[in-house]
Structures are given as C-alpha cells and as structure tokens.
C-alpha cells in the first residue's frame, strides 16, 4: 500500500537497527525475486487488506505512545511538582475527565474507525478466482475450484494467484483447528471442523508472500508454512495451463529410473502424480512439485538435496508427520527419486 510505504520503511529501519532483518527494505521486482520470501511481517504489506490494517496499526501505535507518555508525565507531575501546583489533580473532576471523558471520546473514535475499516476489508468486488485451502496436520491442501465448486486443480503448500484482483479463499480443515494467515496480504482466519470460512484478499504486485499456520494444531504446528505467489495475469494463466496438465514424462534414463523407484516403493499410496499410477490422497499432490519453492510445508527450500534428505529422514526433520523415513533407500536410488521429483516442473 503506497500510503504506508514511508511507514513501512521506518519500521524496516527500526527492525534493522536492532539487528533484525534488513531484507524488509529490499524491493521485489520480478516474480521469482526471492527477497520477500522470508518476510512474514504485518508491517510490510503488499495488499489493500493488510495495508489498511497497517495504517490502523500505525495510528494506534502513535496514539498509544502519546497516551502512555501522558500518563507517565502526569504520574511524575503528581510525584514531583510542588503541592500547590498539583492541587488540580486531587479532586474528582481530574479523575472523571481523564478516567472517563477522555477514554470515552478516544475509544469511540477508534471504534468507529475500526468498524468502517472492518467493513471495507470484508466486502469488496466479486472474486477473480476461488481457491479452497484445507488444513492438514501439518501442511496445506490446495484446490482451485470453479464457480460450481468443482475441483479443477490440486496442489499443496503453495498458492499461485494473479495480482490486482480479489481471490476468494474457502477455508476448511481435515482434522483439527488451523488458521490461515499471510501477514503481508491479509489478516488470519481459522479453519474449523464442521465450518467453512471464506475470506477475500488480493496482492498489489507480483511477489512471494509467506504464510504460516497461526492456531496451535499439535506436534509440528511450528513447521506448517506455505507460500502465496502472486503473478501478473498472463503469467498466471500460463502457469495454470501447465499446472492443470499431467506430470512431465522423464526424458533421461536416470529420471525414468527415479519414476520406477517412486512407484515401486509405494509412494503412490499417499501421493498423486497425475499421469502415473500414483494416485494416493493422504499426502500432498506431487504432480508439479518440481516447480514449488519449498518442501515440507515451507520448511526447506526445494532442491534435489533437500528432497533426498526428506525422503530418507522425514521423521527426523519433522517428527510425527505422516511420512515415514525411507531409510532403506540409499545413494543412487535416493538420488534418482529426488531427481525425478525435481524434474516435475
């Protein structure tokens, strides 16, 4: 949000000054510019919804600081001023005006502002796209659905959207309560069993925005992140066309061997790779896993090394998740499967 760019920059300076991330001040330019990839800040916003809240936040931080200083100043005055100069503080009028009148006025103003903001954030133009996100322990199942609610595309842990247009997110859960949250784009909303929550927001500009589960959901709640990748409409359309298609066929023998091993080791019992016999639905759909930024729900970068490590020691890297460690796979075999998965662009 442009209006708050200055304020965002000042926060960046603040955080940088205390030795925290400096990446906040970096400007993203192209789609796979990863500068934003590790920013998950409510104060570095790239969507109207989060931007409006950011402005609200700054108003409240500044107002709150002023009130805090007022109270401290009055206390110091009550302690140190000469008795005749602080006599005005000793009667009921002082208590009533500062303890009742002042908060009633300021809080009413804040409440009205909050209500208006609430309304602008909640309502909006009709969505360009509907995406159903299902919370799982501990990853995110992603369904692109059409107007009738039919699932058109299945993915996981990464949501690609076109920029500039509101997207409707239909939030559900498979097991316990989770909370869907992409701070740079919007506030959070819970995924509750038996309930369907719907939220809409958009991204102003292309970029990679990190999100994370915000409701405690058990053992690996800490490692349940995801990415929203916003792309210009044309790029998005191109991506969607590829993504909707089946998995790429291996072109070199090593990768073909990887596919064989993938099937032989029973990976298909839990995972789907469209165009192959693998059609499991317990774990994430891997049809185009090679094009994703991360594995294990935003926990590790996606490359052949991390893929191999994950396959052989998933229980060590993210204990108690449903994927067993395939310690039986060694050297070449492991690399072949990892290479196959990496090839699934």
């Amino acid at each position, binding site marked *: 949000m442009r209006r708050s760019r200055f304020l965002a920059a000042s*926060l960046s300076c*603040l*955080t940088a000054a*205390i030795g*925290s*991330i400096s*990446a906040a001040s970096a400007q993203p330019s192209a789609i796979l510019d990863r500068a934003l990839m*590790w920013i*998950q*800040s*409510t*104060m570095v916003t790239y969507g109207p919804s*989060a931007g409006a*809240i950011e402005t*609200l*936040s700054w108003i*409240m931080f500044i107002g709150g600081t002023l009130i805090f200083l007022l*109270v*401290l100043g009055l*206390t110091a005055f009550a302690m140190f*001023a000469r*008795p005749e100069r602080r*006599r005005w*503080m*000793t*009667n*009921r009028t002082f*208590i009533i005006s*500062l*303890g*009742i009148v002042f*908060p009633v006025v300021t*809080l009413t103003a*804040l*409440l009205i502002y*909050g*209500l208006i903001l*609430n309304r602008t954030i909640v309502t909006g133009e009709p969505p360009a796209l509907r995406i159903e996100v299902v919370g799982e*322990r501990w990853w995110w199942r992603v369904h692109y659905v059409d107007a009738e609610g039919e699932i058109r595309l299945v993915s996981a842990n990464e949501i690609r959207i076109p920029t500039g247009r509101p997207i409707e997110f239909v939030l559900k859960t498979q*097991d*316990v309560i989770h*909370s869907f949250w992409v*701070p740079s784009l919007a*506030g*959070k909303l*819970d995924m*509750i*069993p*038996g309930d369907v929550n719907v939220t809409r927001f958009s991204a102003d500009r292309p970029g990679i925005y*990190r999100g*994370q*589960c*915000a*409701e*405690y959901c*058990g*053992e690996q*709640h800490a*490692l349940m992140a995801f990415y929203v990748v916003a792309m210009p409409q044309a790029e998005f359309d191109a991506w969607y066309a590829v993504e909707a298609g089946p998995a790429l066929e291996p072109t070199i023998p090593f990768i073909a061997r990887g596919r064989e091993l993938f099937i032989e080791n029973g990976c298909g019992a839990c995972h789907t790779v469209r165009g192959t016999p693998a059609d499991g639905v317990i774990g994430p759909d891997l049809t185009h896993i090679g094009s994703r930024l991360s594995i294990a729900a935003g*926990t590790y970068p996606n490359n052949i090394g991390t893929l191999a490590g994950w396959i052989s020691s998933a229980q060590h890297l993210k204990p108690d998740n449903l994927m067993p460690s395939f310690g039986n796979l060694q050297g070449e075999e492991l690399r072949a499967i990892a290479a196959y998965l990496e090839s699934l662009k």
Partner: protein
Amino acid sequence: MSDTTYEGGIADTRARQQDTPVHLPNSTPRPEGELERLKQVWRAPRGFHFLSAVNNNYVGVWYVGAALLFFVLAGALALIIRTQLAQPEFRLIGHDLYNQLFTMHGTIMMFLFAVPMVEAMGVYLLPNMQAARDLPFPRLSAYAFWAYFIGGTAFFTSLFFGLAPNGGWFMYPPLTSYKYSPGINADFWLLGIGFIEISAIAGAIEIIVGILKTRAPGQSLDKLPIYSWAMLIFALMIVFAFPAIITATLLLEIERAFHWPFFIAEQGGDPLLWQHLFWFFGHPEVYVIFLPAAGMVSMMVPTMAQTPLSGYRLVVLAIIATGFLSFGLWVHHMFTTGLPTLSLNFFSAASMAVAIPSGIQVFAWISTIASGKLQMRTPTYFLLGFLFIFVLGGLTGVMVAVVPFDWQAHDTYFVVAHFHYVLIGGMVFPIFAAFYYWAPTASSRPLSETLGKWVFWLMFIGVNVTFFTMHITGLMGMPRRTYTYIAEMGWGTLNMISTLGSYMIGLGVLIFLVDLAKNFRPFRGENAGNVWNAGTLEWLPSENYQTRSIPIITSREPIWDQPNLAEDVKAGRYFLPGAQTGGRETIITSPIDARPQYILQLPGPSWPTVLAALFTACFFLGLTIKLYIPALVCGILAIAFVIWWLWGSDPGPAVDPEIDVGGGLVLPTYMTGSMSHSWWAMIVLILVTGTVFACLIFSYFFLWTVNPDIWPRSGEALPWFGWPIGAALLYVASSALIWFAGRRLSHVPERSSWPTRIALILAVPLILGAVSLEVLGQLSTEVRPTDSGYGAVVYMLSSFQGFFVTVLSVMALYTVARSLTGRLNRVRRSTFDNTHLFWHYGVAQGLVALVVVHIFPRLLG
C-alpha cells in the same frame, strides 16, 4: 478512648436487646486470665499436628507460600522455553517436551499461581482488614488449600513422566479429544484443573460470606476497604465464571472417556462450543486476577502517599463495572473464527469499554499520589512499576480489541507481549508490592529494603526487555506456540533479547527468595507492626487471635482518624476482649451496615478436613491414571471425612445462649435463617450450581442452533410424554414432603421428631425415582448419547441431574442422622434449612431440564 454511649443500640438482632444502649469503653484493666484464655483458645497445634491448623493466619500464609512455589516452578518452565527459542532451529528440547512446557507454563501460571495467589492473600488479609477473628468457614479454606496444594503438586509431577498435557492451556478440541490426543496427558489437565477450580469456588464462597458477614461493627459498605470490595466482586466473578470451565472440562472429559460427541463436528457437536464456554470463563478470569491486585494497589497507594484514596466511590463503581463488563467480551478471543460481523462489532465495543473502569482507577491512584507525599520505599517502586507496565498492557489491549488489528495480531507474539504486560503488570507487580507491604503483619521482621530494590530493578528491566521486544517479534509474523523457527525468518536476534530479559526476571525472583529466607519469620506470635503508618485495621496490634478486642469503626482509615484506637483495642476496651463462649468465636454482622447480629462459634484445628482434601485429590488422580478401584476407595473415604468434618458444625447455641460481648452489647450465640452465615453460603452454592446448569442449557441450545437437523422434529423420536410427566410429579411430591418436614420441625422438641424424619426419608426414593423416570424415558427411544451432539447433551442433562439428586439424597439422610442423634430441633436447625433450600432448588432445576428436553423439541413441530 473517650466514653461513648450508643443510644438505641448498634445491634441488628431478632431479640429484644436490639435497642439496648451500648456503652464503651469496657472497664480496664480486664479481668485476670482473660487474655491468657483467649491466647489458649487460639493457640496453634504443636508439632506434627501443626498441619491440622485451620486459622486464616496459618492457612493464609501456607496458601500464599504454595502459590509462590508454583510461580517459581512455572517461571522455571518459562526459562527453559525461552532458552529453546533463543536461537533459530535450536535443539535443546524436542517439540514434544516444548509443547508440554508451554501448556504447563500457562496452565500453572493461571490456575495454580494467579487465582490461588489472590485467593490466598484474601484468606490471609480479609479477616485482618475487617477485624474479624477468622473467616466464617475456617475448615473450608483449609480444605481448599490442601486440595489445591496436593492436587497441584500431583499435576506438576506429570511433567516428569512425560504425561503433562500438551494441548495448550486453552485445550481446544478436537486437538484435545480422544482422536488426536489419545494419551492421558489431556486427562491430567481436565481432571486436575476441574478439581482445582472446585477448590477455587470453595474459597470464593468463603470470601463472599466473610466479606458480607464478618466485619468490624460500623464498617458499613461505604467504609469497606477497597480491597474488600475488590475481593467481593472477585469472588462473585468466580461464582459465575468458573462453572463455565467446570462444565467445559466435564463435557470434554466425558467425550474423551465415553465418546459422547459434544465437540465432534461430524457427529453434530461443535468445537466452537468449547471456545464459548472456555472464554466465558477465560476472559473474566483475567479480571478475576486483576481486580484483587487493583484492590491491593488501592490500599497501598494511600499508605505510601499518607493520604486517603481519591475518588473512593468512583473506584468502587469502577470495580463493579469491571465485574459486569468482563462477562460481555469473551468473544474477543474468537475474532478470527469467522463469526458474523455484527457480533464482532458488539464484542469489540465491549472490549474497549472495559478499559474505562481501569482508567478510572489509574487516575484515582495518580490523584492520590498528587494529594499526598509519596514515600519512596520498596512497595512504592513496585507500585510505580505496576503503573508503567499495566498502562502499556492496557493500551495494547485496546489495540487488539479493534477487530481488523486482531486479525493480524491474534496468536502472534504481539498477543503474548500484550497479556504478559497485563498479567505481570496487573498482577505480579502488585503482588510483589503486597509481599513487601504486608510482610510486616505476618513476620516478626520486615523484608529488606535494599534487596527489595534489587528485586524491583531486575524484574522491571527484565520484563520490559523480554516482553516489549515480543511486540516487534509478533508484528514481524512469529506465531505463538511454535517450538522452533527457521533461521531465515530473521527472528533470532529479537528472541535472543527476550531470552536474556527473561533471565533477568529469573534473577530478580531468586533474590526475592533470598530475601524471604533471610527475613521472613512468620508464626512467631509477634509481628513487625505498623511500619508504614497505615490507616486500616490489619495494622492494629494483633496475634494469632487477631486483635485483642473488636473495635467499632467510624472511618475508612480508622487508625488515622480514631485516636488511640490501637491502644484501646489492645487493652481490650472494645468488643469480645476474651473467649466469651469458651471457644473460638467472632462477631457476625449485617451485610450492609455491619451491625452485630450474633456470635459465630468457630472450629479449631481439624484433621478430617486435611484428610478429606487428601482423599479428594487422590480420587481425581486415580481417575486420571485410570486406577478406578483405588479412586473409588479414595472417593468414599473423602466423603466419609467430609461428613465427619461436617458433623462438628451446626453446634447449636453455646452453653450460654446469649452473651455480653462488652459495653452492654448482648448477642445470641446461634442463628438460623437469612441472618445465618450458613444460609448465605448455601445461597452462593446455589448460584454456582445454577450457573453450571445454565451452561449445560446453553450447550443444548448452542448445539441446536449449529445442527438443528439432528434435533427430533416430531414427538416420535422423543420419549412418550408420560415419562416426563411422571418425573415432574415425583419431583413436586418430594419437595412437598421436605416442606412438610420443615413445618413439623418447628414444633420439635415439644412434639415428636418422627414425622420430620419419615418425610425426609420418603422424599429420597421419590426424587431418585424422578430422575430414573427421566433416564428410562430417554432409553425408551432410539437415541443414545454416543450417537450425536443431541443425544450427548440430552443424556448429559439427565446425568447432571442424577448426580445432583444423589447429593440431595445424602444430605437428606445426613439430616435424618442429625435428628436421630438429637442434633436437630426447632432452634438448632441450620442443617435442615440447608438441605431444604438445596432440595427445592434441585427440584426446580430438574423441572427446567424436563421442560427444555421434552417441550422445546415439540414446539419446533
């Protein structure tokens, strides 16, 4: 004191002596041996029997000590948590232990430290402040203390076996239900906490009746210390808030044990039902913790500034308003659950409104400081620290009350920062101020001013370093309850700063413990006295029996305004200068204007109370670890010891039915009906059970609004109408019998006791029959409790009523036993009156349940 005659008397009794003039002071010197007798009666038991003491000066100090122990333990857990988070991807402890630690830290701080601590301070301070010799039910506070201490210790040790709960202190299902938490960890929470809540409610009943009924004569409501006001509202809030958590834990434990699906969405339950019940308790809980602390601040600030509190009436109004408002904002913990905008707006407004009463109190304290001259002693440091931290926490509280901001801040470290500011500022700092301030009333030496300032600065700087930083960590997107974070997120430095700050707090608390070890010397029969030149009654010269005589109060700060008060009290120139009934006793006063009504004969040391608490704790522990037979044995023993303990209560009039307590004031030594302290306690107990029942009725209607389809549409799925009609008739008949028993009792001993006894005995099968008909009626349908949310809640209502009716039956038979042993007649009838009140209430509750279960679905058509 100058000679004073109170024409027209000061008593408020039914007897004729009401108008007899009272003339004070008593003649001095007092008769030989009077003081020795008083001392002897109130002497604490020696040696091992010391543990059977029930006097508030002992139990109160133990209680505070136990709460402090849990504070230190939960703080130690926090230090482990902070160490784990000091660096990204640190592997000090695994996720499993981490999840247990953060659950235990929150749970212990809330349930085993904060609530017990403020309750403990009340047990210790209230009789002192109101110049009563003790609270009206000393054994009840002893029971509450021992149950809490034994149960809490057992709960804590679950950590050492890896069995500690790991579902978060808020225990949201379905994560905590049998499917996702099959171990007994969650049961430790549900049974442990449910049980400790019962102890908290026992304490609350004690405190309400104590504040309303045991005050210094003349200490009318407008002269009541602010602390007593705060504790009165605090205890009333417990009465209405804690039943919600008891209901919630009961439902979830039954879901876990018997698979009744209250919270399982697929079967017509709803996980949000838990959240409503939990936060209906959980938000008032914050003010339950804060109000007593604010009350203490309102006592300490005037003393440290040597001037009365500014705006006394405004502060009282603020406390009452906080109590009311705090029940209207629980949904602000649920802003992200997708509730309709309208209800979000309502609760947002209510959440902001509750800031106003806090504002009134803050400016009243500032105004008081301006009116006087602030003495910079250790308590003052903590009070100023409190003001700084609490105001900051209040401001961030207003921020999270704004719905859109909460959508971002909720469940991040911003919220962690916010509520630590509120709770540490609003409760821990006032409590530390209180330790330094009131220690001289309990200890023969005050605590050290030098060490106290070290404690203050370490804690004050530590808290701000730890928690101010967390605001930023949260805004930068770090969620709560995560055992680790990825290095690239850039949260490492902030977390390291927070961890270093937390070590400073730990060091401060450690120095406080050193100070305690060096200087705190309680139970010596002497204390350091009025070191701050305070004006309220707890600073009168006192010993184990409290004050030598009980004064008439004409001011809010009697020591400042009534010349020579301390000397006159100590010389025995006021009421009750000795042990007039021959045992422990105190004056019961009227609730509004504190006019003496009668002498309450108080019990002395009691082992059955301690053993009852021990076996109650063992019963719950046995259930948790699934040792059902030992649990059953302990349960029966617990009931046996409770009955043994109760057998000694309701003593009837003393040898002398009326006693001159001094100055010509003659008071009866026994009272029944609405003047009696036990009548008031029973009314409060009915409010508690009524709230539990209301929570169950709420659950019924809540599940109906969520899943109207599973409710029986026509009469067919409901039991035949004859069943509830029969049950209703039996209920009413049993009530009629109890009413008849009461009528006949009014003529005992002139006429036979047998009609009363027979009516009581006959009422038992009738009321048991009523509940059996209800259950049989339900069993005659296809519906079973494990089928659906509807089945579960309908059977739950009957089960609750079944439990209730069992209690009533035991009470009736106990009353008969009292009669058979000659302990029940026209005069000595408190036991019957209590059974009678509870019985009619129980019948009314049963009838309401019948209407809801049988008529409401038929109205749906």
